[in-house]
């Protein structure tokens, strides 16, 4: 037996200083626990990549005075919605602005994860957590049925704590080592997302996107002629002096069609509706990341003796609503609270940590995940869904607002024809019903 005094000990270990990890560390440190927040990157967020936007309801829940702490947000999301690109270069916009989107602080802000996550981890450090960067966790340490620490790739790198919160991200190596899931996620359940961050002057962004100033920003999902008719979706986010343009395509399609992601992205950037928006911009960063979109059915068991898992590692993503960051933050918070309660009880058994799952069930996280449990399967079995309908919307609106010198009866017949040429009418009705079943539980 080792001499206990020689071991590096904490009250809790968090693996990964992303949104979930730093939230968990913040909650535990505030409650007086001695927390190690271990991050493999040079800095927090250095491995993270998203569209994207961050929801303030989640930030505010963990850190009520977040605005006073000057988060490094980009523009607020003041206009959001969908764009539909047509094959002949057309663009249909369906966005909302004003109303709830005029709230201050905004419901969501554009952000860069490599910048935002540094600030988020700093809040955990200010609460008293110790951030240990440049350290990869390679395994967990067991004592019988109980996790009692982690092995890192540092010399004498074993670190001990009675509770470990794993927020390792989509590549769930530790979650598998914990025995919480016994397989890799299927390529058909993961989106490969890739984007370019393109620098443009602030005034240019304002003019091109119809934004009055840098306190207004646009976030849209882009459908239609984006992902080659394969299950996928594009996005455009406006930062202060850059735009993020990219798309996600289901990984199995990228593999099976032997596609080069950067070619799909370049094709999208050259679409006549997108090219003028990024013209003259300078590439600041290209990158790629996987998104676990398998939903509830792909979620691992969420706890075992001495350990819990949160965020992407637990597939906490609602693909339809592009939610994930908010779930990660709240799940990290709930895991942290569970660890604090376990310390109060002095009981870190699986039974004690099962409280984490109970807390998730009380909140939108497990409720939404369960509600949408069939959605991933729906997309898998309806691969044309993301292609046929956006194409129809473009056609329908295009025809509706064009004077062809034809009777309107013929016009509506044509519009209907435009739908039925893509999808038989009965199948379209079937799509709506199965989508309803998948999302609303009809």
């Amino acid at each position, binding site marked *: 037996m080792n001499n206990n005094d020689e071991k590096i000990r904490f009250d809790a270990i968090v693996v990964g200083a992303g949104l979930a990890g730093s939230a968990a560390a913040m909650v535990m440190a505030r409650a007086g626990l001695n927390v190690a927040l271990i991050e493999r990157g040079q800095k927090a967020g*250095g491995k993270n990549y998203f569209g994207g936007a961050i929801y303030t309801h989640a930030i505010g829940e963990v850190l009520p005075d977040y605005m006073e702490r000057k988060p490094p947000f980009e523009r607020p999301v003041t206009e959001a919605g969908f764009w539909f690109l047509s094959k002949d270069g057309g663009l249909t916009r369906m966005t909302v602005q004003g109303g709830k989107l005029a709230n201050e602080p905004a419901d969501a802000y554009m952000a860069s994860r490599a910048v935002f996550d540094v600030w988020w981890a700093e809040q955990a450090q200010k609460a008293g957590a110790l951030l240990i*960067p440049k350290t990869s966790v390679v395994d967990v340490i067991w004592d019988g049925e109980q996790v009692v620490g982690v092995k890192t790739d540092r010399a004498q790198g074993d670190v001990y704590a009675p509770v470990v919160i794993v927020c390792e991200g989509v*590549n769930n190596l530790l979650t598998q080592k914990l025995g919480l899931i016994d397989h890799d996620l299927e390529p058909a359940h*993961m989106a490969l997302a890739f984007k370019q961050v393109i620098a443009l002057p602030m005034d240019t962004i304002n003019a091109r996107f119809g934004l009055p100033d840098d306190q207004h920003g646009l976030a849209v999902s882009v459908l239609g002629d984006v992902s080659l008719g394969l299950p996928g979706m594009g996005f455009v986010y406006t930062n202060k002096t850059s735009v993020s343009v990219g798309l996600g395509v289901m990984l199995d399609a990228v*593999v*099976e*069609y032997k*596609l080069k992601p950067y070619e799909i992205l370049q094709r999208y950037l050259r679409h006549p509706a997108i090219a003028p928006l990024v013209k003259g911009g300078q590439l600041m960063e290209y990158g790629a990341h*996987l998104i676990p979109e398998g939903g509830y059915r792909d979620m691992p068991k969420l706890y075992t003796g001495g350990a819990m898992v949160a965020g992407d590692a637990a597939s906490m993503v609602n693909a339809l609503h592009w939610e994930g960051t908010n779930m990660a933050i709240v799940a990290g918070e709930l895991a942290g609270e569970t660890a604090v309660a376990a310390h109060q009880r002095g009981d870190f058994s699986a039974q004690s940590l099962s409280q984490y799952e109970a807390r998730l069930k009380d909140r939108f996280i497990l409720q939404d995940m369960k509600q949408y449990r069939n959605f991933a399967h729906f997309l898998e079995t309806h691969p044309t869904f993301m292609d046929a309908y956006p194409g129809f919307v473009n056609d329908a609106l295009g025809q509706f607002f064009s004077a062809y010198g034809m009777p309107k009866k013929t016009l509506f017949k044509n519009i209907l024809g435009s739908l039925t040429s893509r999808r038989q009418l009965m199948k379209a009705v079937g799509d709506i019903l199965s989508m309803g079943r998948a999302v609303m539980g009809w």
Partner: protein
Amino acid sequence: MKTGDAFSVKTLPQELQESLPDVYVDDLLVSLKYFIDEEQSHLKIKDHAVCARCEHKPCIDFCPVGVYSLAHDGKIQVAYQACVECGSCRVGCPYKNIEWTLPRGGFGVAYKFG
């Protein structure tokens, strides 16, 4: 997606396939910041004989940063230095023939924006 020897490829309609522009991936990689581990690769081919048997070698295409390419001797070569650690090859290789580990702490891609 079928795996192993049952893996097969699909083809896009010709018009769509031809609409894909040629992109030189290195032009994109220059925008990325890396701390390169000169001593060891975090990506390894488990068994080169399996790659030799793999008819379609989709990794050469689907890796978003072009880590995998065919060497003159017909072997798959691994430019791990360009890896952004997305994990696509870890789960996407039809033969699960890639040993994917995390780069040592501090090494690998270091996103500036993310």
